[in-house]
């Protein structure tokens, strides 16, 4: 519970974690390019070089995967060592003197790069990886010369359908085996393999088999070239056109740290962001595709009885219903908190419920036990169930599950989100008699039949925090503005409060957060960081 609400530096690629030093091993001192550096025992030379600002780009090395040292793109000179050493595999030793910019190792890396490019098709104009390609980056930085090969390139299969999510271009593949290791180590399923030999060696699946696992799209992230491309993202946008905003996946209670990569007011893909405590470098395919929901069935304006109306009229109708019900009995108003909305939205609505003296319910999506795999995917598909409970507890509210709504003696229901669990036919018909006032991002389910629906921003469109299953309170930053007249959920609650004569005054999500952390003891140490400005990937270098 000691986490901050900030997801670390908003943009910086998270530094690769050095292997945890055993207590018995003291830190190692070595010299890299004339600079002394001290690293924990077990760190490899490549990671140590990053500490002195030298990026020895490599194809096969990935900080989250096993070291295989097969691309030879990270060769360095180590004094008293007769041969060049792959810096990814070489662990740092006491008193080691490493040269990364000397003539021998620079030439060796140039030659390796030229060798890698011998059969590469260089079809960058149609390659999705262009702009974030490690091969492209290394070529521009180190080689930048015409090919010396005047024989034809070895041609291999293009646009190979590998499975439901991935297309493979065998020509572009530089045989680094990162994708094979992702399948083996992250997904735990050996579905990719090399076959043939020499310059005819190709990546592929076993005959008739498919690359089909819950983490398959991570292979696209780690691919240093454009050999593996995502069917979902393929040919939609160029990498350099996108802006990246840090956020947290709202697909389940794991809360994987992600980057929303967006352009023109919509998300085009979600990619994982490193967080050693939550998701390392990875996220699941299902979470990766949740961005599509940001554009489906959205509620862009306030509605009354299903017909468009302005905010003013909707608030007037809603407040009339609520005030008359409150006058009858405060408990005839039911408030439904949502485990799919942020802490701020729920805190605002919980405060309002407390001021009204209303009954409080919590809407939670049912568990999906089949999802749990002991890795990143868990059965709880609510991004913020823990946060809602913590808030209700801190405010001293008695909460009931939302399915008890039909039995309770409520006349007016103020609901956050679009989720009411399956209540059964009798209860559903009773629900129809209720005056339902929904604050939701999507016009579906109960929201479609609501008396009043107030449009709220979705998770990618507003500042807020969510609490994952481990209790980490993680910050989401707004990537683009919400559609139409939609406001942040807490802001809609504030308007509703003011319309019913309750004094709730917050001007910014930060203010809600401050009041919330003051109210919830476990979150008292959390701090709010400034909203992250989108990072233009045009200037961000390679990824993968």
């Amino acid at each position, binding site marked *: 519970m000691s986490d901050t609400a900030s997801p670390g530096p908003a943009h910086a690629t998270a530094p690769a974690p050095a292997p945890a030093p055993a207590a018995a091993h003291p830190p190692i001192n070595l010299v890299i390019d004339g600079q002394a550096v001290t690293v924990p025992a077990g760190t490899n030379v490549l990671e140590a070089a990053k500490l002195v600002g030298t990026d020895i780009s490599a194809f096969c090395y990935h900080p989250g995967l096993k070291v295989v040292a097969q691309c030879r793109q990270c060769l360095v000179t180590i004094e008293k060592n007769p041969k060049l050493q792959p810096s990814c595999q070489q662990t740092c030793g006491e008193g080691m003197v490493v040269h990364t910019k000397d003539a021998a190792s620079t030439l060796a890396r140039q*030659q390796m790069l030229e060798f890698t490019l011998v059969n590469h098709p260089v*079809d960058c104009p*149609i390659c999705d990886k262009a702009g974030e390609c490690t091969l492209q980056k290394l070529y521009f930085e180190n*080689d930048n010369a*015409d090919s010396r090969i005047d024989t034809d390139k070895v041609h291999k299969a293009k646009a190979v359908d590998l499975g439901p999510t991935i297309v493979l271009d065998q020509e572009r593949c530089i045989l680094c085996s990162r994708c094979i290791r992702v399948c083996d180590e992250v997904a735990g399923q050996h579905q990719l393999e090399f076959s043939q030999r020499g310059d005819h060696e190709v990546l592929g699946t076993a005959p008739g088999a498919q690359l089909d696992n819950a983490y398959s799209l991570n292979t696209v992230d780690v691919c240093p070239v454009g050999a593996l491309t995502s069917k979902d993202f*393929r040919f*939609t946008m*160029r990498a350099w056109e996108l802006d990246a905003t840090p956020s947290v996946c709202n697909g389940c209670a794991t809360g994987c740290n992600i980057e929303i990569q967006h352009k023109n007011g919509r998300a085009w893909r979600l990619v994982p962001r490193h967080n050693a405590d939550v998701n390392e470098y990875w996220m699941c395919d299902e979470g990766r595709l949740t961005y599509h929901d940001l554009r489906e069935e959205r509620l862009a304006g306030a509605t009354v009885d299903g017909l468009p109306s302005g905010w003013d009229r909707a608030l007037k109708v809603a407040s009339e219903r609520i005030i008359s019900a409150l006058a009858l009995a405060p408990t005839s108003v039911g408030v439904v908190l949502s485990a799919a909305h942020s802490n701020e939205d729920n805190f605002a609505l919980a405060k309002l419920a407390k001021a009204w003296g209303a009954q409080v319910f919590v809407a939670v999506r049912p568990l999906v036990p089949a999802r749990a795999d002991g890795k990143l995917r868990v059965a709880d598909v609510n991004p913020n169930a823990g946060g809602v409970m913590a808030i209700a507890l801190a405010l001293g509210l008695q909460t009931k599950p939302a399915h008890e709504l039909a039995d309770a003696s409520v006349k007016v229901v103020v609901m956050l989100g679009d989720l009411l669990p399956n209540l059964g036919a009798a209860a559903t018909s009773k629900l129809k008699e209720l005056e339902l006032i929904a604050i939701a991002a999507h016009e579906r389910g109960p929201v479609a039949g609501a008396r009043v629906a107030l449009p709220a921003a979705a998770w990618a469109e507003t500042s807020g925090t969510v609490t994952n299953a481990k209790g980490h309170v993680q910050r989401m930053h707004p990537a683009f503005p919400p559609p139409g007249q939609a406001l942040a959920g807490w802001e809609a609650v504030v308007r509703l409060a003011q319309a019913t004569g309750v004094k709730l005054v917050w001007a910014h999500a930060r203010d809600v957060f401050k009041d919330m952390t003051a109210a919830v003891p476990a979150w008292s140490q959390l701090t709010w960081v400034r909203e992250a400005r989108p990072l233009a990937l045009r200037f961000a270098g390679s990824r993968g």
Partner: protein
Amino acid sequence: MSNVDHDDNHDDAAFAAGGGPRVLSVSVASPRVRTIQVVRPGPADASYLNATSKGLAVTLKHFARNFFLPLRSKESRAKAGAPVDEKWKNEIETVQYPEEKVTYPERFRGLHRLTLRDDGAVRCVACMCCPTVCPAHCITIVPEESDSKGVEKRPAIFEIDELRCIACGLCVEACPCDAIRMDTGEHAKPVEDRSDAIETLQTMMARGVKSIAKQGGAGPTWRETAPGKHPHDFNR
């Protein structure tokens, strides 16, 4: 203030040296108020007769030359010092537009066109380099997957707003596939509606020609380049 005073003093000095109009009197109370002699043109100049007839003479000279030059024989032209071959037309200043048009320089940047492959398909692979580099943001491309496995990607929509285009030619420079050119020599046409100024994939392909350019250009191979020029030529 001191600067102004300085300039005034300078003017006074110029007046004193007789560099300006003749000063008839100077006000005692404020010396900057002066009466000067105004020089007006005389009746000969004021009528503009001289200048008009001079200009008319130039016009008549050109008229006579342009009128009689085509009628004169080669020998006669040679005698008059005029070009004897067809170049005499260059001597005539007037262009008979629209029957006759000035030929533009080779590098004139006209309306865009999209070049074609041998099978008539568009060469563009929707790499998005031109909308990226375009400073006027006038290019809109929506890519799609094509059936051809060799090319894979093509534009579903390719639009250029010729009203926004500043004809800088950066799109042509940026294109890695020789897919877009501005060598049509055509102007953007006048339109009644702004939307008519948007060039589409179809209109630009209709203007297109086939291109067989290789990606990256067909330059010399490394064996043809001078020895020692190649940064990697360490085995030579």
